């Protein structure tokens, strides 16, 4: 199998691009726990390192580890490494994650190309066992529902077989259609986190129980339907610090979701001229007052939610 970066340039996937900036916007608020610069970032940088570039520039993090499974691309990956502070580990995430030192507060983004499977859940389990309080993580998987040509019962059987005993309870074939698959995967990931933390907490005194608070539940499509789940792990004694991060509430972030209900990153198709025209009128509390210049009201509404994170692509000769 070719590495996915040979097929897709991550930088020009608008959904992913918006998601990346939103995640950074949330990570920024972790500063209540400790200065964000002091965190370590662990991700799958591929050869583009788009997330690493953003995290380094925006958050100032210098302790960075990228895990790259395709060792045969080592030369290219290392050539493309944008900053000297990125340590690239070659190997499978199942092997490389446990080999890292987990004594340091971390931000981990496991941005998989593939779908949810036991290997992904093993990584989720491992990081939830290992993260120190005040750490954050996100997991992205492909959540494409079964092709319509596949009989619903067969599709359910396939997913059940793949997830094995990690399959959430009471899933019917209809639950997999559309964004349903993403919902099922979120539950499987959530179950895994809950189980790990139950064991981790079993012998801990009340003030030191680990709490996982979900912040991210993104659905978006760059061709395929994608799901990102994640949040913050902290000790119950740090509830005050978590509250001060104001992920939720009046000062909260509009894309943060603490429950099963996802935040859909849906990107309107607008021309550059339209974008600039909207930008000049945003932010705005009354969208009805905006001059839409012929753009459907629904697209203006969608754009107004995403404009701060919206990618700008131009074709350029560098």
């Amino acid at each position, binding site marked *: 199998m070719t590495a996915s970066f040979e097929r897709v340039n991550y930088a020009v996937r608008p959904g992913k691009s918006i998601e990346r900036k939103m995640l950074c916007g949330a990570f920024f608020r972790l500063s209540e726990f400790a200065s964000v610069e002091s965190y370590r970032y662990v991700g799958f940088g591929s050869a583009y390192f788009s997330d690493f570039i953003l995290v380094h520039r925006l958050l100032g993090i210098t302790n960075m580890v990228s895990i790259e499974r395709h060792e045969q691309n080592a030369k290219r990956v290392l050539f493309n490494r944008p900053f000297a502070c990125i340590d690239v580990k070659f190997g499978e995430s199942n092997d490389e*994650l446990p080999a890292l030192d987990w004594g340091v507060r971390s931000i981990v983004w496991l941005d998989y190309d593939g779908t949810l499977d*036991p290997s992904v*859940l093993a990584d989720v389990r*491992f990081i939830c*066992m290992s993260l120190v309080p005040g750490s954050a993580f996100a997991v992205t998987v492909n959540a494409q529902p079964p092709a319509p040509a596949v009989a619903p019962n067969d599709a359910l059987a396939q997913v059940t077989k793949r997830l094995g005993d990690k399959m959430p309870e009471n899933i019917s074939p209809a639950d997999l259609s559309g964004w349903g698959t993403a919902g099922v995967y979120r539950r499987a990931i959530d179950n895994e986190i809950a189980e790990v933390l139950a064991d981790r*907490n079993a*012998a801990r*005194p009340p003030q030191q129980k680990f709490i996982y608070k979900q912040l991210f539940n993104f659905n978006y499509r760059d061709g395929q339907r994608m799901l990102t789940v994640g949040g913050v792990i902290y000790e119950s004694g740090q509830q005050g610090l978590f509250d001060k991060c104001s992920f939720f509430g009046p000062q909260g972030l509009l894309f943060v979701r603490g429950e099963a209900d996802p935040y859909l990153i849906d990107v309107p198709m607008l021309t550059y001229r339209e974008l600039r025209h909207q930008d000049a009128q945003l932010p705005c509390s009354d969208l009805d007052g905006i001059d839409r210049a012929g753009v459907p009201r629904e697209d203006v509404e969608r754009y107004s939610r995403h404009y701060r994170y919206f990618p700008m692509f131009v074709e350029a000769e560098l």
Partner: protein
Amino acid sequence: MSKPRVVHAEPTKDFFIYMLVKDIPLNRAVLDLVDNCVDGATGLRGRRPFTGLHVRMEVTPQRFRIRDNCGGIPVEVAEKYAFRFGRPPGAKALDGSVGQFGVGMKRAFFKLGKRFVVESRAERDEFTVAEDVDKWCESPEWEFGFRKLKENLPKRPQKERGTTIEVTQLHEGVSEQFGLQNFRTRLREEIEVAHETSLGRGLEIALNGHVLQDRPRSLKQSADITPAFRERRFGDVMVKLYVGISRFDPRNAGWNVYCNGRLVLEADQSRGTGWGEGPGLPRFHPQYNMFKGYAFFEADDSSSLPWNTTKTGVDADSSIFRSARQEMLIMMAPVIRFLNRLDRARTAGEDWLLSAVEDAKEADLKRISDSETFGWPDKPKPPPPDTQRISYDRPREQVNKVKKTLGLRSSREVGETTFDYFYGRECKD
């Protein structure tokens, strides 16, 4: 006034004894009696060495005897607690003890035979309790009588205090087992393993005159290879975990779990200690024969420890064990990864890694504390081969036909040539 009518639910003694001994193997019953001696030693010495203390066992087809100089049982303790089934509330627990459930000694008597005698010489008193189990079963009382009792004696020197237990009229199966040399050898090894901590502290344990050996626990350590050590406190339980590699030893690879120094799980290779948990934590396989992990659970109050009543395993549902197990899993994953790597190194003939393992010396656990994560020399792996092997079967007749058509001699050439033919036409850019 007439007595209110009730439904009787108290156990018959026969049933009680049957249930009590049903699940305990003979060797474990004997180990329970050794545990009592070790507790006596702990009572006398606390955390200091056990030098000068001994436990002497005699195991023959006619009788079982265990004699120690580990302090004896004070009369008051015997009257109120030692012979009770289960630990009554208010019983003073011994700090760091291995006896916990208050069943071990009595269960061992019933398991072994029909007559037992307990003689104790404690600091200021001495007693003898003797009972015939069949007669005891017939009486409605739940008591054992003192045969001899002397109190308020002058203070006895420490080395003369001790307990002797003798069981005679052994059950037929027990007598038969005790006559087998192999059983006795196995028993000796089991005591050596279960009580290696006490043996290491200087307690002398002898079986039929043969003194048991201390088996030091070690892991390979060098400048290149660093075993992992973690110390964690969960409530009042202190957990010490050591993980790494040791000499190739298929019988003893896996996790060893101790509660207050007593081995309760030996060379475990099951899901309970993380094997087969999932990717990164595969099922045990011979290529992990060098894996060794030690988990020590220590608590003053032994009821906090995660062991089962027969001390043959851990209580997997205990909160302490669930939390500690996660640390164990985290610590073992890098060792497994290393052993996978070592396996590839053997195949690929990477001598530098093999000799790094060879050069690492076994180090006593006491000398291991440097790193929380297992470490090894990480040199770049040799690049994976550029070629990939394909093998398949096709009807012989067809293969021969292709051979002829292409003017080739070997089937291997047929495979290569047909592949190149297809690749040249369909895949070449």
